[in-house]
C-alpha cells in the first residue's frame, strides 16, 4: 500500500472511531430520528439532524470553494425516480431493523445481537440485488428524470455557494432559536451522554474530515455488498464471474489532496471502495466498542423476542437491497448529498420520510403488537 493510501485508510479509521464513539454516547440514531417523529411526534432529534445538515452545508461549501474536493461529489448523478423508491424502501428497512447502516455498526460495537442480525440482512439484501441487477439496470433507464443537472445549483443555474449560503441564511435563525430554548437538548440522559445539538456539531465536523480524507462523503453500503461478493466467491466463483454488477467499477475519480486515482466497485476486491469504506466501518464499530467498554455497558444480550429478531433480519435485507437501488444510504444522502442540494438526495430524503412512516406502521402492526410485546416484559 502506497503512502497516500495508508494515510487515507488510517484517517478513515480514526474518523470512524470518532463517529462511532459520538453516535454511541448520544445514541444518535438516524432511524430513531425519523421513526420517533411519526411514532411519538418527538422533534428533538430531527432538529439536531437539521443542525448537522446545515453545519455540513457550510463546511462543504468551504471545502469545494477551496478545491479540497470535487463539486458535485463522485458517484452523484442526475436524479431518477429510483432515488425516491430507494429512499422509501430504505426508510421501511431502517425502522424495521431499529437502526440504519451506520447505527447498526456502532450498536454492533457495543455488543448488540440485533445489530449482528441486521448486518446479516444487509449482506443478504445486497446479494439479492446483485442477482436482479441485470433486470433492474434496464428498468432504471425509464425512471431517469431528464433535467440536465445533478444539484439544485446546476438546475437554477447559480453558483453552488449561492444555494449553500441561501439555505444557511434561511435556516440559521430557526436553529439559533431552537438552541436558545433548549429544543435540541434533553433533560435526562445515560452516563456519558452527549446532548443532541453537540453530537450534531461533532458529527458534522467528523463527517467533513472524512469527506476531506476520502474525497467523497461517508458511505458504507457498498462494503456490505463486497462482503456478499466474498461469500458468493467462496460458494461459486463462476456464478460470481457471471454477474456483471460485481465486475463494474462506478467509482473512478482523482483524490484532490493526493492526486491518487481511486477506482472501485462492489466486487470482492481490495479496491478504492474498500480503501475509503472498510477502515471507516471498522472505526465506527471500534468507536462504539470503546465507548461502551469505558462506560461498562458492553454486553452481548441474546434475549431479544423472536419477532424482533425477524424484524431486524427483514429490515436489514430491505435496507441492503434499497441501498443499491437508491443508490447509497441515509448517511451518504443526508450528510453528503443534501448539503450540496443534490437532486438525487432530495428525492431520497422525501422517500425516506415516507418509508419511515410506512415502516413505523408496520412496526406497530406486525412487530410490536401489544399481545406479543407483553411477552417481552417480565413483571
Amino acid at each position, binding site marked *: 500500500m502506497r503512502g497516500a493510501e495508508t494515510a487515507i485508510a488510517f484517517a478513515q479509521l480514526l474518523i470512524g472511531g470518532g463517529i462511532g464513539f459520538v453516535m454511541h454516547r448520544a445514541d444518535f440514531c438516524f432511524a430513531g430520528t425519523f*421513526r420517533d417523529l411519526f411514532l411519538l411526534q418527538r422533534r428533538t432529534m430531527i432538529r439536531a439532524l437539521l443542525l448537522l445538515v446545515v453545519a455540513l452545508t457550510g463546511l462543504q461549501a468551504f471545502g469545494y470553494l477551496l478545491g479540497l474536493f470535487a463539486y458535485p461529489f463522485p458517484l452523484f448523478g442526475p436524479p431518477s425516480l429510483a432515488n425516491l423508491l430507494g429512499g422509501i424502501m430504505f426508510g421501511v428497512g431502517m425502522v424495521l431493523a431499529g437502526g440504519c447502516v451506520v447505527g447498526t455498526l456502532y450498536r454492533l460495537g457495543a455488543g448488540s445481537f440485533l445489530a449482528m442480525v441486521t448486518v446479516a440482512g444487509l449482506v443478504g439484501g445486497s446479494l439479492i440485488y446483485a442477482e436482479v441487477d441485470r433486470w433492474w439496470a434496464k428498468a432504471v433507464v425509464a425512471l431517469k428524470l431528464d433535467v440536465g443537472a445533478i444539484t439544485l445549483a446546476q438546475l437554477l443555474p447559480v453558483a453552488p455557494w449561492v444555494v449553500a449560503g441561501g439555505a444557511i441564511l434561511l435556516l440559521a435563525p430557526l436553529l439559533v432559536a431552537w438552541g436558545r430554548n433548549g429544543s435540541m437538548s434533553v433533560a435526562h440522559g445515560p452516563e456519558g451522554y452527549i446532548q443532541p445539538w453537540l453530537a450534531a456539531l461533532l458529527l458534522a465536523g467528523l463527517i467533513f474530515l472524512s469527506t476531506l480524507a476520502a474525497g467523497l462523503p461517508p458511505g458504507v453500503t457498498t462494503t456490505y455488498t463486497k462482503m456478499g461478493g466474498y461469500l458468493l466467491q467462496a460458494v461459486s466463483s463462476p456464478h460470481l464471474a457471471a454477474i456483471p454488477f460485481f465486475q463494474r467499477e462506478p467509482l473512478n475519480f482523482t483524490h484532490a489532496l493526493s492526486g491518487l486515482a481511486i477506482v472501485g466497485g462492489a466486487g470482492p476486491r481490495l479496491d478504492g471502495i474498500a480503501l475509503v469504506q472498510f477502515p471507516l466501518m471498522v472505526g465506527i464499530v471500534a468507536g462504539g466498542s470503546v465507548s461502551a467498554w469505558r462506560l461498562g455497558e458492553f454486553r452481548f444480550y441474546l434475549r431479544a423476542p423472536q419477532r424482533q429478531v425477524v424484524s431486524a433480519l427483514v429490515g436489514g435485507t430491505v435496507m441492503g437491497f434499497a441501498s443499491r437501488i437508491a443508490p447509497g444510504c441515509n448517511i451518504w444522502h443526508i450528510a453528503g448529498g443534501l448539503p450540496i442540494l443534490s437532486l438525487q438526495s432530495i428525492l431520497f430524503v422525501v422517500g425516506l420520510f415516507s418509508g419511515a412512516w410506512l415502516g413505523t406502521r408496520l412496526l406497530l402492526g406486525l412487530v410490536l403488537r401489544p399481545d406479543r410485546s407483553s411477552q417481552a416484559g417480565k413483571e
Partner: protein
Amino acid sequence: MDEEKTDLRMFDIRGQICPSTLLVALREINRHRAALRDGSMALLFITDNRDSTVTIPEAAENMGYRAEVRKVGHHYEVEIGNHP
C-alpha cells in the same frame, strides 16, 4: 407517600429494538395510571437501551409523573412514580 406502602413493579426490557422499550413503558404507565397517581405504585423499567433513558422519562414527565434514571451495573433503571 410512605415508601413501604409503595408497590414497585419491575419490567425487564433489556435486549430489545429501540421503540419497544418505550412502548412497553407507555403501555404500563397507562395501565397503572390510577395507582401511579395516588402514589400506591411505582414502575421500574430495566433497560440496556441508552435511548430509553432519555425517551421514557421525557414521556412520563410530559404526562405529569416523576422520573428517575439510575445506572446499575451494565444497565439502567428508570423509575416512574408520582411526585412526593
